[in-house]
C-alpha cells in the first residue's frame, strides 16, 4: 500500500516521524483525512487527536494549537504541543481536567482560558484511552 511520510514537529523538537497509509484529524473546518498524493494544502487544526493508520494498526497523537501542511509525498503537523498516546502523563491530564472544571464552576472572567485547558485535558485523556 502507498504510504506518505508524516512528521509532527513542536518547538521542543520532533515528536513523531513515520510512513503511514492515512492521516485523519480534525481541522477547524471539519474532520479531514489525508491519503498519499494529496494536493498541497494548509489547514489549522482543532485541539484533538491525530490518527495515523499504518499496517493494520492506528497510532494516536494528541495535538494542541497546530496546523497541518500537506504535500503529495509529505505531511507535516506543526503544533505548540503534541504527545503520542504512550507518552501522555495520564495522572497529570486528569488533574488538569479537575482544575479546569473547578475553575469553570467558579464565576470568573478567565472562562475561555479554563475552557481551553479543559479541552486540552479531555483530549489527552481520550487519546490515552484509545491507545489501551
Amino acid at each position, binding site marked *: 500500500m502507498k504510504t506518505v511520510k508524516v512528521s509532527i514537529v*513542536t*518547538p521542543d*523538537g520532533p515528536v513523531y516521524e513515520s510512513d503511514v497509509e492515512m492521516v485523519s484529524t480534525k*481541522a477547524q*473546518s471539519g474532520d479531514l483525512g489525508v491519503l498519499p498524493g494529496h494536493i*498541497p494544502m494548509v489547514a*489549522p487544526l482543532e485541539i484533538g487527536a491525530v490518527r495515523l493508520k499504518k499496517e493494520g494498526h492506528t497510532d494516536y497523537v494528541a495535538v494542541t494549537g497546530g*496546523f497541518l501542511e500537506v504535500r503529495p509525498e509529505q505531511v507535516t503537523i506543526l503544533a*505548540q504541543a503534541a504527545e503520542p498516546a504512550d507518552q501522555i502523563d495520564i495522572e497529570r491530564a486528569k488533574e488538569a481536567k479537575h482544575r479546569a472544571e473547578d475553575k469553570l464552576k467558579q464565576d470568573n472572567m478567565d472562562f475561555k482560558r479554563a475552557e481551553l485547558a479543559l479541552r486540552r485535558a479531555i483530549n489527552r485523556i481520550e487519546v490515552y484511552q484509545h491507545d489501551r
Partner: protein
Amino acid sequence: MASLRDIKNRITSTKKTSQITKAMEMVSASKLSRAESNAKAFVPYMAKVEEVVASIAVGAKDATHPMLVSRPVKKTAYLVITSDRGLAGAYNSNVIRAAYNAIQSRHTSKDEYVVMTVGRVGRDFFAKKEVNIIDSILGLPDQPIFADIKEITSKAVAMYADEAFDELYMYYNHFVSAISQEVTEKKVLPLTDVASVSSKVSSYEFDPSAEAILEVLLPQYAESLIYGALLDGKASEHAARMTAMRSATDNAKELIDSLSLSYNRARQAAITQEITEIVGGVAALE
C-alpha cells in the same frame, strides 16, 4: 609585610573559591551542551513555520492581517532577555546597556515605551530606573520548554493585537560560539520581513481561507520568534557563565601562585632571622 598566618589564610580561602568556580564552570559546560541541543531541536519547527508563512504571504497577496502591517508608532515595547543570576561575566550588562541606550536615544518621554523582561537582573535594573515594566518572568528553568514561556509570548502578541503598543523589539545575546556572544536587536512585530524569508515556495490550497490561516499562524510565528531568541539567550548565558568561571579559576590559580611565593619568602625570612639571632646570641656569650 603580612604575617605567615595571614598569607596562609588567604591561600586556603582562594583555593576554596577556585574549587567553587571550577565546579560552576563544569556545570555550565554541561548545561551549555543541553541548551545547544534544545536550540537545534527548535530549528525544524521554526523553518517549517517560516516556510508556510512565506508561501502564504507570497501566494496569497490579497490576504492581509494586522500583524503584517506597520501602523503609526505611539508606543514601543522592548523585550529584554537576561538571566536570573549573575556570575556570567558581561552577559547581562551588555544586553541591558544596549537596550537602555536604544531606549534613551529613541524616546524622550516615559509614556512612549514599555518594557518586558525575562530574568531577575533585567527586571531589577528597569525597576530601579522606574521604567514601566508590563510583564516579567522570573525563575525560568535552564532548559526551558515552550510551555514555560507561552504566557509571556501570547501576552505580548495579544497586547500588540489590542494596540497596547505598536512595535515590539527584543534584545538578547545571540550565541555565536562558546567564547563569543553578540547582543542582538530584533524587531518582532509588526512582521514586515516575512516575504523576504522565502526561498522555495510551493502553492497551497488554503482550508478554509488564507486569512483564516494567517489568523492562526502569525501569532504562532511571532511566539516562535520569541521562543527562539530565548533558547539562543539561554545558550549564551551558559556559555558566558562558563567563560567567566574559567577565567575566575585561572585568576585564582595565579593568585595562589603569587601568594605561595610570598609565603615561602616570608617563611625563609623568618628562619634566616632566627638563625641570625642565635648566632648573635652565641657570639655575645663568647
